[in-house]
């Protein structure tokens, strides 16, 4: 058991931080399953990040006054119970409420795990493990969520968290941590690293949240295909450490390069030459590499030589999760407005192709009628036109032409959806550039 304690705590950190974006690929299923709206389902994502961002710093204050292992175990237990509650939620209101409780427990679990990992591994290794687990969880979250949704259901995402957390709670109690001591707030929060963390988290929302939406809703790929595609990000993030070890740049350069790579990757995602999944791989690799370089170093520099440790770790958590909320708040209205604006060009493109299709006039009328009904029934979503063609009653001689037409129309829809996401990805790139500016722009020299 003793040997499993630290890995279990590390897994808990990854689990809680993965929860930030783990439901991204499950949102379409939740939308249908809980009979809710797009606006409401977004709160499954927002509520967790908002609550975690807001309660992180106040939770750290409690750690000054109580046994870390007790608070950690309590936090993990609350997180586990709330995960089970999420899985059994029968309405969107209950699910959002359970996610808020999950975030509250998660905040205590994260801060407590930092203290306990330091107690188990020592300062340097404990902090490094906590940071790396967080980066890995953030990167892996959407992939794991997508695969679980496809293999089982959206509820499976929360169910698998329960046993992991249930094991981690007694593990936390087993750690002999230092007794609590009230430390005066000796160091101010590191403003630049936390600001850069917030901006970079907002930018990464574009990569992790918008990309899966584009793949599932825009390009009509299955959650599993989308999950496998976005797995490029965590794989590339893993490559960041060996690369940094090889080139050994100063920390500031590593962070600046990380921000630049994320910005470049997001620009790449804004301009794919087609809706082939392969075109997202290289831009995602840039984002993953940037994530691995920047998030790690920014969190380290926000914590380095600052006490109390939990308080400064809480600032990094607050910055990251409020950054995600900022990203969602900025990007969601942009891409929903762009999707709305994309409807007319898409309809015009469809009309053009149907008018000029090499079909008999009566078949054109039949296609137009079927498409009209399908577009009306799928109002507010990027339509799937396959049903319209599958139920089409046309001359058998016209079948090859209708098959070609269906493929061309799907291509137009993919073009319209991709174009609608362009501005949001570019806005994400701008946020990454602002994070870069927060790191590299010289500040005022301290007079102290």
């Amino acid at each position, binding site marked *: 058991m003793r040997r499993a304690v630290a890995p279990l705590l590390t897994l808990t950190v990854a689990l809680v931080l993965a929860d930030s974006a783990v439901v991204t690929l499950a949102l379409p299923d939740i939308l249908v399953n809980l009979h809710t709206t797009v606006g409401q389902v977004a709160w499954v994502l927002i509520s967790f990040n908002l609550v975690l961002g807001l309660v992180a710093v106040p939770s750290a204050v409690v750690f000054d006054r109580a046994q870390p292992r007790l608070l950690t175990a309590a936090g993990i237990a609350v997180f586990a119970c709330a995960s089970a509650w999420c899985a059994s939620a029968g309405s969107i209101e209950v699910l959002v409420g359970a996610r808020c409780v999950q975030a509250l427990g998660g905040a205590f679990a994260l801060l407590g795990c930092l203290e306990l990992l330091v107690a188990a591994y020592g300062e340097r290794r404990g902090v490094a493990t906590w940071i790396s687990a967080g980066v890995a969880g953030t990167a892996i979250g959407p992939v794991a969520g997508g695969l679980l949704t496809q293999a089982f259901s959206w509820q499976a995402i929360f169910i698998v968290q329960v046993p992991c957390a249930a094991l981690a709670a007694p593990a936390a109690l087993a750690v002999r941590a230092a007794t609590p001591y009230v430390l005066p707030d000796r160091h101010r929060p590191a403003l630049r690293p936390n600001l850069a963390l917030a901006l970079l988290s907002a930018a990464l929302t574009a990569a992790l949240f918008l990309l899966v939406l584009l793949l599932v809703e825009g390009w009509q790929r299955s959650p599993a295909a989308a999950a496998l595609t976005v797995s490029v990000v965590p794989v590339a993030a893993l490559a960041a450490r060996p690369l940094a070890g090889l080139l050994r740049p100063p920390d500031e350069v590593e962070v600046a390069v990380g921000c630049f790579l994320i910005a470049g990757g997001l620009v790449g995602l804004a*301009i794919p*030459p087609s809706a082939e999944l392969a075109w997202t791989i290289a831009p995602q690799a840039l984002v993953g590499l940037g994530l691995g370089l920047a998030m790690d170093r920014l969190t380290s520099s926000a914590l380095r030589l600052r006490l109390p440790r939990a308080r400064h770790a809480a600032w990094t958590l607050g910055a990251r999760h409020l950054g995600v909320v900022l990203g969602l708040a900025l990007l969601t209205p942009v891409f929903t407005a762009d999707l709305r604006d994309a409807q007319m060009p898409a309809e015009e493109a469809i*009309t053009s192709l149907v008018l000029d299709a090499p079909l008999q006039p009566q078949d054109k009328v039949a296609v137009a009628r079927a498409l009209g009904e399908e577009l009306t029934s799928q109002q507010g979503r990027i339509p799937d036109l396959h049903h319209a063609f599958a139920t089409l009653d046309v001359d058998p001689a016209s079948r090859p032409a209708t098959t070609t037409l269906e493929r061309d129309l799907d291509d137009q829809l993919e073009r319209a959806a991709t174009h609608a996401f362009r501005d949001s990805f570019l806005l994400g790139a701008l946020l990454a550039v602002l994070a870069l500016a927060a790191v590299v722009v010289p500040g005022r020299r301290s007079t102290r």
Partner: protein
Amino acid sequence: MTAGPRVLLLPVFALALVTGVLGIQLAHGGASFEPLRPADPCAVRDVSAQASGIEGLSERLVLLGLDGAACRLHVSREALVLGLAQSGPRSPAQLAALRAGLLDAVQKLKDADALPPSSALVDDTLDSSDLNGFVKAAIRAIPDSVINSALPTDDVLTRTIDNLDLHTLLANLDDQQGLNRQLAAAVSHALKDSLTGQLPHLL
């Protein structure tokens, strides 16, 4: 390696990566993966039809007519079609532009020598017209050369378009039989008018 060049290694590597990825994407048309833009309806467009006979001619006339109408209304052909497909009354400007566009289409096909002789269309027209059997048989007995000189295609089409009640026709788009009846009535009327008009020349 000294600290100076080592500091530059990672930035140079990152710059090369980003430039490479974006360069390849742009070279493969990354910036132009957008939905098809509607063509200028005022520009000349080649239209073709899969159907033959009067159905094919009607399709080409409608496609050219939509272009002409859209050009007059300063909208794209596709926006006009989507507008006309909406339920509810069509504006007088839309109907006037559509009629003018169809008349322009007849003229364009005539200028391009793409109108078939009326004898080539007469069988199709008679099949769907409400003329009595005796008249139909009598017309079918007339030699093609006489029909072609008695019924210039452009004249029949122009009269048909003038006779069409476009408001009712657009309201009937979902009713194929009603649409055919209305078109057949307009064509029959145009045939009679054209014959009456050409009679003095024939005599």
